[in-house]
């Protein structure tokens, strides 16, 4: 009898091993890394000032440079600070003013869309104010901020070739995370009937190369002081996840702590941030006392690799 059982079993296991596509198909090589980093301190604008946003963007830029390598990295820092000098950089032969207005950022993304390839990684970070899935950008003139829908930003990025990761450190940015056709965020749609209705709603899934990682789902996002330096709570944990030492302003030579088995993925970043950020996250059974900030990532069946080591 045992012989009868083991024969089909052995055949099944052997055939599965042979069908493991991952072992036999060639993998693409990673291309260049492009980053658009946007930060506003709102000094001189009609919003509360934020002291941690500019250090957040500047240090993320350094961390990404170290991860990608100087020769494979192009970063564009869009900074709004009172009295700051505005640089101009050329992206794909288009001169772009590095000041975070809607037009400048849209121009930069459009310029990138003509230069990237499918193997490139494109990063977009935002540190500032937001509400209900709209981010607050600088006005062309005057002091009244211009709100910009995250969905519009994502639409623009859909025309850019490559893997895209949008990182938003601002309040309520979870509302800007696109809804996945097959799965639901348990932070925003925590209902079994919703999950079943999604199964039958007829919306087709596509493989997404655009991921969104946000500091919070539907709550505020906070700044704090870390060893005398002000940072967003989320970005501080993100920098640590990348291997950046905020205290010394240097990059660790070791593999980033959020990487697993030589791969730094979007889910790896999220897990590390949730485990290491100084604010509590939302628990499913017990609501913690005090402020909570629960990072969120776009749904779907796949996790995306950012860097390999």
């Amino acid at each position, binding site marked *: 009898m045992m012989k009868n059982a083991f024969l089909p*079993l052995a055949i099944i296991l052997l055939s599965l091993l042979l069908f*493991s*596509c991952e072992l036999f*198909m060639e993998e693409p090589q*990673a291309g260049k890394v492009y980053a658009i980093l946007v930060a506003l301190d709102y000094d001189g604008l009609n919003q509360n000032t934020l002291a941690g946003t500019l250090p957040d963007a500047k240090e993320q830029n350094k961390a990404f440079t170290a991860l990608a390598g100087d020769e494979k990295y192009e970063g564009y820092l869009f900074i709004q600070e009172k009295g700051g000098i505005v640089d101009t950089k050329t992206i794909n032969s288009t001169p772009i003013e590095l000041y975070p207005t809607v037009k400048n950022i849209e121009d930069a993304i459009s310029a990138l869309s003509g230069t990237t390839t499918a193997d490139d990684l494109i990063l977009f970070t935002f540190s500032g104010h937001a509400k209900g899935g709209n981010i607050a950008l600088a006005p062309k003139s005057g002091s009244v901020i211009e709100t910009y829908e995250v969905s519009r930003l994502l639409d623009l990025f859909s025309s850019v070739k490559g893997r895209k990761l949008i990182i938003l450190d601002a309040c309520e940015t979870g509302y800007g995370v696109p809804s996945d056709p097959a799965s639901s965020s348990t*932070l925003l749609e925590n209902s079994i009937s919703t999950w079943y209705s999604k199964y039958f709603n007829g919306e087709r899934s596509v*493989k997404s190369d655009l991921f969104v990682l946000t500091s919070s789902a539907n709550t505020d996002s906070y700044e704090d002081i870390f060893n005398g330096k002000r940072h967003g709570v989320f970005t501080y944990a993100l920098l640590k996840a990348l291997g950046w030492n905020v205290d010394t302003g240097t990059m660790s030579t070791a593999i980033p702590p959020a990487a697993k088995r030589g791969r730094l993925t979007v889910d790896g970043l999220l897990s590390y941030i949730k485990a290491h950020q100084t604010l509590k996250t939302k628990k499913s059974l017990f609501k913690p006392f005090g402020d909570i900030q629960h990072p969120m990532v776009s749904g779907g069946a796949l996790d995306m*690799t950012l860097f390999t080591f």
Partner: protein
Amino acid sequence: MKRVAFIIALLCVLSPLAAHEGYYYTLSLSIFPYLSIPHYADDIPMRTAGGGEASIGALGFRKSHYDFSLELRYRGTTASIPHGFYRARGFDSLGSDLRFAYQLKEQIALFATVGTEINFYRGVDSAFASFSTALGAEFLLVENSFHRLSLTVPITLHLRKEITAIQTAVGLRYQYFSTRDGR
């Protein structure tokens, strides 16, 4: 759905009170490779992961050549082997199955299950519903008046909205009959 879960739990609690001839409790454990075939365009035709499954049943009935049970199931599926810039996310599933088995020979039975489950992607606060169906063979290893242990070899289709996955498992199924003449 909460009402359905409550009724299933209530039946599980009350069923021992009605321990008649042929009723049994069961615990099943299995491990499997998990091949997910996407319905969308992917870099490779399928992604390979692995997993394990545990089922408990307090509503089992066996009579002559036939065997029915209602089981609650946990299934853990790992993330897939990374390929290129992507890997399939791992997830945990909680669901229930209706199981039917037919005894072909003294030591061999064929069985089929249909079930549904809620799946939670690990670490990313995201959930989805799905359905499962399986066909398999069951080989009796040992038995006595109260206990029965079998080796199971099911092939399961995990019917997700954007993916159809094939699991080819190997497992053990333990049955405990509360009455001696139950079989």
